[in-house]
């Protein structure tokens, strides 16, 4: 380990730096020039000094669609909560839980993560594992009616958009 190992990129993540600047201004709750300066410096310095920890570069094709995806996800989350609320208050004995293997077609790591997260946040499903060869996601379903329908739903609502956005 040497002091300052390969810090190759002088500005590794411009978008992220911008995000950090905004985050800083929100945190300090001020837009004074001094704070902007500090935020800008930190926004550059932190990604710069930690770039080795984040070697992957997700290529975002369409930030707008990602936002849209997020919005849809939010709606699904709200819906899922209503579903889960109903299930939780039901007699647990009437539930039919199960594990479902969801065959993945995504390859991008970030995309897989997004998908897994989306599954976990939405109706009655938790992504419980990723097969070591990344061939499928193991999904636990609180109340399993129809396995194929569930897989189809996930593919349609989440995986396909994600592939389009991220791969």
């Amino acid at each position, binding site marked *: *380990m040497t*002091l*300052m*190992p390969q810090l190759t990129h002088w500005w590794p993540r411009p978008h*992220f730096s911008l995000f*950090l600047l905004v*985050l*800083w201004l929100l*945190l*300090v709750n001020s837009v*004074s*020039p*001094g704070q902007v*300066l*500090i935020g800008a410096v*930190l*926004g550059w310095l*932190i*990604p710069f*000094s*930690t770039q*080795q*920890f*984040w070697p*992957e570069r997700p290529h975002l094709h369409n930030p707008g669609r990602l936002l849209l995806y997020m919005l849809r996800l939010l709606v699904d989350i709200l819906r899922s909560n209503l579903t889960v609320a109903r299930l939780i208050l039901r007699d647990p004995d009437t539930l039919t839980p199960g594990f479902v293997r969801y065959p993945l077609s995504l390859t991008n*790591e*970030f995309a*897989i*993560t997004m998908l*897994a*997260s989306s599954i976990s946040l939405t109706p009655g499903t938790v*992504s419980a594992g*990723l097969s*070591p060869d*990344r061939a499928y996601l193991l999904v636990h379903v609180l109340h399993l009616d129809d396995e194929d329908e569930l897989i189809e739903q996930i593919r349609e609502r989440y995986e396909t958009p994600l592939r389009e956005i991220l791969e």
Partner: protein
Amino acid sequence: MMLLSTVALPLLGALITPLVSRRSTAILPALIAGTIGITMVSVLLSQAPDVLGGTILIEHYPWLPGIGLSPAFRLDALGLFFALIIAGMGLLITLYAHFYFAGKHGAVRFHSLMLAFMGAMLGIVTSENLLFMLVFWEMTSLVSFVLIGFHQDERPARRGARMTLVITGGGGLALMAGVLLIGNSVGSFQLSDILAPETALTSDPLYPWMLGLVLIGAMTKSAQFPFHLWLPNAMTAPTPVSAYLHSATMVKAGIFLLARLNPALGDTDAWLYSISTAGMATLLTGAFIAMFKHDTKELLAYSTVSHLGLITLLVGLSTRMAMVAALFHLLNHALFKAPLFMMAGAVQKATGTRDMRRINGLWRTLPALTVISAVAAASMAGLPLLGGYLSKKMFFIESLGAPVIMPLQWLTPALAAIAGLFSAAYSFRIFHNVFFNGKPQDLPVWPPKNPGVGIQIPAAVLALAVVLVSWHAESVVHGLIGPVASAAAGVALPDYDMHQLHHIGTAFFMSLAAMLGGLLVYMAREPLFRLYDQLPPADAREIFEWLMTRAGGRAERLVHALENGSVQRYIALIILSAIVLAGPVLLSGIQWHGGETMTPVDPLTGLGLVLLMATAVGAVLGHHQRLFALLLLGSAGLFVTLTFARFSAPDLALTQLSVEVMAVIIMMLALSFLPQTTPRESSRLRKGRDLGVAALGGLGIGLVSFAIMTRPHSTIADFFLSQSKPGGGGSNVVNVILVDFRGFDTLGEITVLGIAAVAVFALTRNLQLKDRIPQERDQYWASNPHPLILRTMARPILPIALMVSAYIFLRGHNMPGGGFIAGLITAVALSLQYMAGSLAWAHERMLTPFRPLIGLGLLLACGTGLGSLLFGEAFLSSWFGHYKLPLLGHLELATALLFDLGVFTTVVGATLLILANLGKLMTVHGPGKEIG
């Protein structure tokens, strides 16, 4: 100066001898010692006329006047008498030793030690300061110890030496106590004050203690019963030592001391009975046993014991003339015993043994020595007209007039006569058995060789002295012993009536009876020996060793029963001590409720506190399941955090939370190498005891806490609140206290953290964890350690957490936050990378190794504090300023921030160093490779 140099010269000689003699001829040490001896004798003799005339020479050298410990010397007749014996005898022994050690190694050591001893002995007898005398007193014990152990490779020598040291050293300690009591009572340790007529020690309530302690000191030194055991065992020393230390000088120190203190302590019933009883017991024991010893030196040793008893008895008798008798006998004993020892040494040289059953008929080989020994033995036996006869007769006379209570009046002379009888018997024996009594039997050296003239000269000189003293007994007694005895008695004594020694009275018949009886006993020795052999064997040395070993063993067992290595017990003792000490004080009339009104309980806070207690109790109940208990511990930490947050301590809440998580992670890292469960091994009793201790402790702390919280409160806090902004430049008072008002505490605190991290580094550096304690879980270890989802999510968390950390850091001075918390956030964020990636992966990406971070953090904090020195301010004086900059607007700069940066850096470095090195243990790369 004269007396000081008298003492110092031999001591100096002792130091010089080994230095100069290392590679020179064998004669040099003897030459040095001899020169010193001659100087001593002549110096002392030059003072003799004045001193014997009543002059007392005193010299003071103030050293530690505060505790009365100052070298002070005094030469009066008593001192001179002893000093002459010491110096004169020393001179002769030096001569003797030169021949004794011819061809052997050890002469340098011997002469050096002899000189040291001579100096010490002279110091004892010329000390004016009683406390300082102890210096010499103990020195003689120590030198004696070394000399007895001269032949280190011989087991009896080592044992004898240790026994002597233990007995005489112990006696020295008692003497020290006695001297201190005397000095305290008199108000001075100077003999002039102690011996002054107006001193009335005998009426001091502590007089029995003084007497007892001094007596123990004197008795141990002078080998009085029952402390006499060391003397025969000291015979392992080279013969010159025996002759000098153990017959002529050191053993007389006790008697000297008694004589010296006689005016101050004597003349009481206690003195009379204690000393004379001890003396009598010694006299009889020594005389009786001596007869049965086949070893020449052992016989002489017991004989010495016996004669010392006799002298002691006389000192104790306190009759007007007993002191004269005592001192005269002391002189005679020195004169006749030393040549006998010298004879024993010479005979040993001639025959290779000291066993009188083998040594016989040596008169042919050693005719001169036969004559010399005849004179000495005759004096010892008390044959008429020799010194021994005279002094022994004096003794009989004194025993007849002993001021003992009525029914015992006959006892003293009777016992004295019996002792005299044995004394005569062993005197005959040592002479007859060695020089006559048939032919020698299987001697190691055959034929016996004459050891030369030189070695016999000192003995001849002494034999001559015996004759001279006997011849001029009257002038010796009147001219020398008289003044000496007067000095010892403290009052001028009339001249001893020498004529009564020539009367044919009771004393004469006692002498006669002793002599004849002694002859008879000697004749009947063979059956007596057989009788004696049937007595149960009692080897003092063996008994002593057994005692010592046993005492050591007992001590070891006792100590290890207490210090049994069980930290559980030690902890219980500590906590119990606190309870036992503080408990009673608290229970005595304390008002628990201090009078302040209590804050009302709101349900949520109440619930939080109840949950806090529940988690703690849960952790105790579930502590056998370690991970579960750890979880509960973590939640207890969470509730503590919430408690701090609730009671207006946001900084504390932040710190507690971060620390808790870090601590739990560290404990979990360790747990993976430890058993997952704790066995149930405490007995019911132990659990009960622990519960009791815990309940008492908890109750006490709870009550005290309640008592304090309900008491009115006035603190220095107002200062901090009012000065925080104007003086410290920050509105978060807690932070200003930490980095400014009490920044020194914080400096210490981060130093502790830094040291802990470095210590963890050092501890784990070479730790081999090859053998992880087997766990049932092992079979499932087969999965990707760095799940994709975690890995991906950990990426963006790092920069965001760092941003938060920067935010917390920068706001710390004015809002909750600060360097410590920021440092922990950074460390946690980085440790997440360790978990999500791997140690190696994450470690390659660190910008810097961790130890320099710790050091630099400390240096930065320290350097910030030092900066104020440049401005003439105290260490850690803070400085801050507000600036309006164009474009950037308002800006505050403060040294406190720099200090806090030091804190931040240290915390990051320390925490990561600990984590990385613990994590390192888990990797297959394992130890060996330093991390951080």
